[in-house]
């Protein structure tokens, strides 16, 4: 089994009596109310999804990550994992102190405060997203963050209720599952979309050379126009039921928000899948990109900086349906002209789902289209709660 990032799976989630005691102790602490996304990232920290991180980044760790793309311990790390808070909420809190974290009024974790530092929005956004353009959803998100950041180790005693609990596996659980299935090589697949034939082609191409496939959609706030979480999960259930061997593919969710940080997020996505026990990770065209902010293959090139990552990236170029080949192909496999090729564009996908056009209809499995059609509003609406 592949070692977790940093060598050891973090476990800061309490059980049994220790959980009760921590919950009781938290009552006496100053309480910071956090969003559901932050709560799930506390869960990720506490259950080893973000190993070797066991808490929110201190100023030192954040500086390392922003400027060197590594943690102070020198492990590769590319995305800030920070807790923002209004200065007023931290008046009674300093280094050496502790905070209770609450979500929707319910305490669920504690944080041992290592430091409190001011958020430098410009530096944060420029380093993470490569831009300070406010039309970038990540930059907009940073602009809305509170002015202070709190660093320190977390202890989890109660995860917030989760509508997708049934798909929520911790790295300790996926590692046991992969081992019991006898998988020595496992390919991780990141997605924030419903599956079309192009995704299936990439997944099956990778699966041909590995023992198992871990389909791991990001569940959490997305931008308007993206598919809703429940639609993605239903669509994948349909695909896996009809087009995958049951003992070769596993569906589990990664609860976090999309950052749209392109190349940096691709490396982060790979590290997280390494913690889940994947040995390989699929990196597509414009992975975790948005608009035209990143070059189509920037997310491939960045991996050259991390020869020590431990998980092997599998790079895929753009794919399309070629009417002359009669199959899904990519830039490396199909010699035909653009006129013969049908791209998996958003417009094509919508036509496919509406069943309006017979060529488009071939781009999505009928069972998947049916699963999506059961939802009257499958897309995240502009201005919906949590929409970026």
């Amino acid at each position: 089994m592949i070692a977790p990032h940093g060598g050891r799976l973090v476990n800061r989630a309490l059980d049994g009596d220790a959980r009760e005691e921590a919950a009781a102790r938290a009552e006496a602490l100053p309480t910071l109310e956090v969003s559901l996304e932050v709560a799930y990232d506390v869960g990720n920290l506490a259950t080893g999804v973000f190993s070797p991180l066991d808490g929110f980044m201190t100023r030192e760790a954040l500086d390392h990550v922003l400027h060197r793309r590594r943690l102070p311990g020198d492990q590769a790390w590319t995305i800030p994992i920070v807790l923002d808070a209004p200065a007023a909420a931290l008046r009674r809190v300093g280094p050496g102190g502790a905070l209770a974290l609450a979500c929707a009024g319910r305490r669920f974790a504690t944080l041992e405060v290592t430091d409190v530092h001011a958020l430098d929005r410009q530096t944060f956004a420029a380093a993470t997203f490569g831009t300070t353009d406010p039309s970038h959803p990540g930059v907009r998100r940073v602009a809305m963050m509170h002015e202070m950041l709190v660093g320190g180790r977390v202890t989890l005693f109660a995860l917030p209720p989760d509508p997708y609990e049934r798909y929520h596996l911790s790295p300790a659980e996926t590692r046991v599952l992969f081992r019991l299935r006898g998988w020595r090589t496992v390919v991780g697949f990141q997605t924030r979309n419903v599956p079309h034939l192009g995704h299936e082609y990439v997944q099956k191409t990778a699966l041909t050379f590995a023992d198992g496939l871990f389909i791991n959609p990001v569940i959490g706030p997305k931008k308007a126009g993206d598919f809703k979480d429940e639609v993605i999960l239903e669509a994948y259930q349909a695909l896996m039921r009809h087009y995958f061997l049951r003992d070769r593919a596993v569906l589990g969710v990664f609860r976090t928000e999309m950052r749209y940080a392109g190349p940096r997020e691709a490396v982060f996505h790979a590290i997280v899948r390494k913690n889940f026990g994947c040995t390989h990770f699929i990196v597509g065209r414009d992975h975790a990109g948005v608009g035209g902010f990143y070059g189509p293959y920037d997310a491939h090139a960045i991996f050259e900086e991390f020869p020590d990552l431990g998980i092997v990236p599998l790079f895929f170029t753009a794919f399309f349906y070629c009417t002359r080949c009669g199959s899904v192909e990519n830039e490396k496999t199909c010699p035909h002209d653009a006129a013969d090729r049908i791209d998996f564009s958003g417009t094509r996908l919508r036509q496919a789902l509406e069943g309006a056009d017979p060529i488009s209809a071939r781009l999505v499995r009928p069972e998947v289209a049916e699963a999506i059609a059961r939802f009257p509003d499958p897309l995240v609406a502009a201005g919906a709660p949590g929409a970026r």
Partner: protein
Amino acid sequence: MPDDAIMIPLPGALYRRVEAAAGADEVPAYVARAVREALARDEAAAAPGAVDEAQIVERLRRLGYLD
């Protein structure tokens, strides 16, 4: 570079130190072996307490991930 040179993933600091010493981006097999053994020892020393595997298997069964 000797014939038995192989490339293995190493933690960043170690990798760069070895790289600087060797003046190449490949690491000789004997260095790789020594580093691998040292890492395995560190990892064993840092291993966490046993996870409750029975409890994990029970949940995986309940959710339908295992028969």
